[in-house]
């Protein structure tokens, strides 16, 4: 026992004169700026994707409807409700939040004697911490779900311009798995897809490397996976929840990946075969996407389906409108062949109204479904546009597919800013390259570049291929000298739509341009040809002021035996056509089975 050991401890008494270090008012102490306290949610930004719910290991989050939040495209209308009887304040929900709407305040006090109250919808129910500006927010430098797309391999412009080879190479297995991995399976896209394809489900099938399952899911809603995997307008990707912070998932390419991987001869083994024959007969006019889709689903139900097609081959606009470099014909044939395989009969080069009358079809078949599409070009009606060297894009494309010679004399001017304009411009560019070794094509359209209806990548690729794009100018006059075309005078367009959003272009006549041209191609829209419907039937049918057929939600016209769908109802879009073919098929099936 050392004496110093007795005395040293007594030095503790020196603390008597020191101030206590106690926090004076602990109840109002503010937590650190990064503190993970109670949740806040910006209801406007939130899209209710439910990713927070998916990552919560405590099942603390419920997705619930909130008053005042409408369900709409890209917004489920649900909002997270957090159960503080479960929450562990890990903040993973904040980290993964696809929109960044969910954050945490640095408030931490919630005391109650009723255990039932500890759950609330951040943002919707007022809480004292709603205004707290400090608290945990997702750090900028990392993310729990990759935001960058897997880059898609494409032919470079110099190569692809040489011919009509497909530009997009498609995903390899690794790439597809990597891209599929980015999906958070929220399912927001399903509602936006016109066909309501089971997108998260087939992406999951890719992840699980179970492509057969993926194929089955695709065919549930869409018998054109190869086509849609290439040329779909992918509305789904515009609402992809990941799009809020990064690149959307390449849903279209993933779909194509599934279809590409499975050889045609395996389809039959993977997919459902038709049910027992019902003996009912359905005639379909037009072997385009709508007609074929309707045919496929009707045939699956066991009905006899015959398609009447005017052109030599089935496919409609998919074949005669879309150039081969975007949609190779063998891929289209792969889809169509399977539809034929299950027993759909296609009578090509049979134009209804010319080779066979609608009345006789009505007599032979229980139901008729007309999906004749938009195959008539529309004119700009600019001065001089009736010149023979002014062509319609749809006609040129159709002729080109049929293998006919089409005019290509340089310089070419294409009028229009949509995908059809791009298609014809790029087709002609390839022709130019093949025939002349250079590209001399100018594309002009009313819309400025940011509102051009064409897909962004189309514009980029067109430029890469040497096409000059002059957006924001409207055609004023086609200048010609007899049979030879001189060029096109354009005028700057100030605005395309008026305040009500109606098409009503305004021009600034002080700013005009003259573009020299040998031929001009108009690609500003298409019209329909309903001449196959006899006047007697047309009279009974309800039509609107502009002569368009009126249908109900199931594409049934006022005549119970007559359905109409596809582009003639919805306007030009493959996926819409496929979707309403499917919808009509379901309804027709009901009627044929005598159900309501």
């Amino acid at each position, binding site marked *: 026992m050392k004496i110093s050991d007795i005395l040293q401890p007594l030095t503790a008494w020196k603390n008597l004169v020191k101030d206590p270090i106690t926090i004076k008012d602990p109840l109002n102490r503010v937590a650190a700026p990064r503190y993970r306290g109670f949740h806040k949610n910006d209801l406007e930004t939130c899209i209710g994707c439910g990713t927070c719910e998916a990552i919560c290991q405590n099942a603390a989050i419920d997705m619930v409807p909130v008053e005042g939040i409408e369900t709409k495209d890209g917004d*489920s209308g649900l909002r997270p409700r957090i159960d503080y009887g479960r929450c562990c304040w890990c903040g993973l929900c904040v980290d993964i939040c696809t929109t960044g709407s969910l954050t945490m305040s640095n408030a931490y006090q919630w005391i109650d004697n009723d255990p039932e109250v500890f759950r609330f919808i951040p943002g919707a129910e007022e809480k004292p911490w709603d205004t707290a500006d400090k608290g945990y927010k997702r750090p900028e430098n990392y993310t729990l779900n990759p935001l960058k797309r897997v880059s898609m391999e494409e032919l470079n412009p110099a190569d692809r311009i040489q011919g009509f080879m497909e530009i997009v190479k498609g995903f390899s297995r690794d790439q597809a798995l990597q891209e599929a991995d980015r999906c958070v399976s*929220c399912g927001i896209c399903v509602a936006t897809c016109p066909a309501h394809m089971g997108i998260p489900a087939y992406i999951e099938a890719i992840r699980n490397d179970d492509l057969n399952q993926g194929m089955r899911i695709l065919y549930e809603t869409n018998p054109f996976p190869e086509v849609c995997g290439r040329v779909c307008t992918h509305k789904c990707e515009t609402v992809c929840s990941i799009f809020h912070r990064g690149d959307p998932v390449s849903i279209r390419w993933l779909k194509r990946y599934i279809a590409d991987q499975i050889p045609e001869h395996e389809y039959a083994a993977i997919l459902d075969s038709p049910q027992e024959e019902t003996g009912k007969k359905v005639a379909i006019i037009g072997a385009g996407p709508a007609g074929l889709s309707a045919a496929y689903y009707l045939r699956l139900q066991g009905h006899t389906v015959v398609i009447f097609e005017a052109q030599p081959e089935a496919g409609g606009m998919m074949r005669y409108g879309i150039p081969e470099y975007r949609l190779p014909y063998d891929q289209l044939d792969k889809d169509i062949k399977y539809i034929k395989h299950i027993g759909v009969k296609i009578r090509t080069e049979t134009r209804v109204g010319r080779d066979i009358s609608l009345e006789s079809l009505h007599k032979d078949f229980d139901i008729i479904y007309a999906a004749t599409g938009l195959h008539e070009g529309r004119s700009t009606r600019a001065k001089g546009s009736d010149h023979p060297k002014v062509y319609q894009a749809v006609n040129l494309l159709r002729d080109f597919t049929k293998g006919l010679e089409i005019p290509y004399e340089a310089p070419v001017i294409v009028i229009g800013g949509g995908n059809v304009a791009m298609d014809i411009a790029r087709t002609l560019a390839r022709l130019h390259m093949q025939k002349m070794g250079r590209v001399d094509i100018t594309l002009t359209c009313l819309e400025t570049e940011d509102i051009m209806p064409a897909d962004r990548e189309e514009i980029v690729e067109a430029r890469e291929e040497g096409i000059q794009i002059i957006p924001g100018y409207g055609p004023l006059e086609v200048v010609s000298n007899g049979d030879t075309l001189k060029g096109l005078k354009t005028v700057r367009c100030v605005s395309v739509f008026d305040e009500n959003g109606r098409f009503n272009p305004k021009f600034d006549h002080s700013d005009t341009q003259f573009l020299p041209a040998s031929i001009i191609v108009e690609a500003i829209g298409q019209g329909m040809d309903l001449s196959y419907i006899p006047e007697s039937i047309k009279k009974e049918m309800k039509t609107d002021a502009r002569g368009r057929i009126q249908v109900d939600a199931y594409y049934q016209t006022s005549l119970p035996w007559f359905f109409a769908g596809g582009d003639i109802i919805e306007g030009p879009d493959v996926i819409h056509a496929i979707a309403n073919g499917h919808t009509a098929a379901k309804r027709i099936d009901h009627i044929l089975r005598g159900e309501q």
Partner: protein
Amino acid sequence: MDYVIQELKTLFSGQNFEKKRGDLLFATLDTGVLVQALKHLRDMLGFRHLVLITAVDWIEEDLFQITYLLRNYTQKTDVGIRVFVPRSNPIMESIHTLWETAATYQRELHEMFGIDFPGSPRVNKPFILEGWQEIPPYRRDFDTKKYAEETYFPRPGRKTHDPETYMKQKLYPDGTES
């Protein structure tokens, strides 16, 4: 580590050698030679520290994997010895004579997996659980969520919606366009 592989291979016909890192090796042995092998590792090769004993339930193959992790403090290396016992009759020789502390691990394995170690001290006494009446909880076929929900019934009043189905109900109720 190569000499360890060599010894285990020749003396105890070890298989499936897996070098995880420079200082971590996993090997599979037969249950029969395990105690001998561990003794050899301990006394001859210097793996004198028992890091842990644990089990993995490979229910698909109907096997329990028991892992013995040993450490050599002079070489600073670890060896993980795997043995497999059938799930239907999980009995393993006890190694509490080699390491006193092994008894604790074996007690836990007995309770949590139902693997028996005859002769291990207090192996049949409850260790962590009290009044447990179900199958041993760490077995894969024991569903903890189901058990918890049936026994402790979570607070009612919770209902969640799947965005995909909810949007379907709202936007296209019977499969048509809105």
